[in-house]
Structure formats: structure tokens, C-alpha cells
């Protein structure tokens, strides 16, 4: 039985205390074996990278299906 499984048994035995059981489950997760950082990376939220304004503006322009911009706005 690995460390995570050992802690999970504590969670099972404390199922009458929801808060404690939840804490044990989280602790068991913290102890879960991790053979590759990719396992952790799968939990990471998507990260945006800076690409400058051009691609953003191109996407807006290329998606637009309405009339072109009018010139009053230049003032």
C-alpha cells in the first residue's frame, strides 16, 4: 500500500465527518505518486502567452461579417 492509499484508508474511516474526510482525500491526493511532471501539468490551467496586438486584431477583422468601419470615427 503506498502513502496515498494509506491516507485514503483514513478518509474511509472518517466518512461520518465530511470536512475531515474531504481533508484526508486532499491529503491522499497530495501524497499520490507522480512519475512525471506531465501528470501535474494536466492539472494546470491554460496559460495565455503574449503575442502582440496583431493576431488579436486580425481575428476580429477576419471574423467580422458586417459593414466596414466608417470614417467619422477617425476624428
Amino acid at each position, binding site marked *: 500500500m*503506498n*502513502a496515498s492509499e*494509506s*491516507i485514503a484508508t*483514513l478518509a474511509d474511516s*472518517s466518512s461520518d465527518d465530511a*470536512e*475531515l474526510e*474531504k*481533508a*484526508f482525500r*486532499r*491529503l491522499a*491526493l*497530495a*501524497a*499520490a505518486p*507522480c512519475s512525471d*511532471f*506531465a501528470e*501535474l*501539468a494536466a*492539472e*494546470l*490551467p*491554460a*496559460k*495565455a*502567452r*503574449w*503575442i*502582440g*496586438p496583431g*493576431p*488579436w*486584431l*486580425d*481575428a*476580429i*477583422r*477576419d*471574423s*467580422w461579417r*458586417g*459593414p*466596414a*468601419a*466608417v*470614417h*467619422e*470615427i*477617425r*476624428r
Partner: protein
Amino acid sequence: MNHQNPDTCIVDPRPLLSDARADSPLWALADSFDAVANGMKNPEADGKLERIRLPGFEPWQNLVRAVSALYADDTEGCLEAAGRIDEASPPAALIPLFRAWADSPEALNRASAATALLYRRVVSDVHPLEILAEQAEEALRHGMFERFETTSRRVLQDLDELPRADGSLLAIRYAVRCLSLLDEAGSDDIRFMDTLTKALGKADALLAAGLALLEVDGEAAAAAFRGALECGEDGRFLRGPMRRAVAEAAKTFGAPRLQGRVPHERDALQLDLFSGVFI
């Protein structure tokens, strides 16, 4: 919602700039957007843009806010700003991108091809922390312990402070992984606990040490757990209900009935690695 007047909407500010006067609000928009899309701030342009009350600008003001929030990892702020973009305006094309980033990639099903392409350019396939972690492991493989400590400390801190995930849990998992890597590498000349403590605080560092020791030495693990609890709440993970769970774990795994295990060849190294930890 359809508030946008097609006669005054801005599809692309760039071609409009050639005829714009120096004090045109278009420059405030262009400068502010340029800064935010490059990960910078332009307070002067931002201030001007915020004060503009002209038709056609409001969707772009919200777009700048949404992009700024996206780069700040502010999910709530991003969704809020994106939700305020007039759906009939040109910037509305990017709403699915913000929703895909904040909620679920399935939001891209309603995106234009150009927006879907933009999403793939903006959102990294490989998280920067994955690259850093790989660099740390590469350093360890080459015996560059100082580089390993510096790089892994950065990964630990960044994981711990992640705003959009259970970062403290990921940080503890990474700490346990680092300890395991050091064990495998036979790195008995490294004092990684200092690195862990600097990155996560002493309580979380000791907890990670306890978790790493749990399989090989229940008593040492329990001692580490007790040490962690005595540090108070200086870590992000070991606080609140987690303290009760760790206290229970310390009692359980420190009990004599669980200490009659078969000695493990890694014990000596691990105990040396964590020596001085339980002071």
C-alpha cells in the same frame, strides 16, 4: 443584444490611425491595446481610453479589460468584461475565446475559424511551468544541484501561487516528486529542505517531507507531520481542516503498530536528506 450601430463600429483600428489626429481617441485605444497584448501597462493610454464615451468604443474598452484579465489569470474579471462586449460588435467575435480559456474549450465550437486559430496561438500547449520543471530535472540529471534547487524553487512558488487551480496541492505534489527525484539521484549532498522552506513555508515543507517519508518510515513521517503542525499556518496547504487531518495522520502513522515494517535501502539516504528537519 444589438446596440451596435454599424455606421460607427470599429472593425479594425489600425487602418483608421493613418488619418487620426494626435489627440484622437483611436490612439488611446491602439496604445492601450498594444500594451495589454504585449504584457505591459500604458497608464496614460488606459486612463484616456477609460474616459472615452463615444459610439463604437465601448466594446473595445471591454475587450481591453478582458484581454488584460486573461493575461492576469483573472478568470472572473475576464468573463465579466467579455460578457459586457456588445454581441453585435466586431470584438464580440472573441467572446468564445475568453469563455474557452476561462471555462471550457468547448466554447470554441461557437467561434469563427479566425478566433479558433487565435485561441491556439494565445493559449500555450505546454505550460511554462512544465518547461521549467523539465529544466530542473535536466539539471539534476547532470548533477547541477544548485541549478536544480533554483529552478525547482521557482516551480514550487509559481505552483503555490497559481490563481486558477488548487496550487498549494500541486506544489506539495511537486515537492514530494522533487524529494523522490533527489532520493533516486542519491543526492545526499544537498539540503533541499531549505529550498522547500523558502518556497512553501516551513509547515508545508515539513508536510511534504512527511508524505515523502511515509512509505519508508512511518515514525519519521509522523514526526515531520507533528513538526509541520507546530509551525502554525505559514503555508498555504496546511491550514484549516487540513490541520485536523494531518494531526490524525501523525497519530496513526506514528503509532507503534505501524512501525514494524521491513527496512528499506533508501531509509538511510532519506533520513540524511531530512536531517535537521524535525528541530
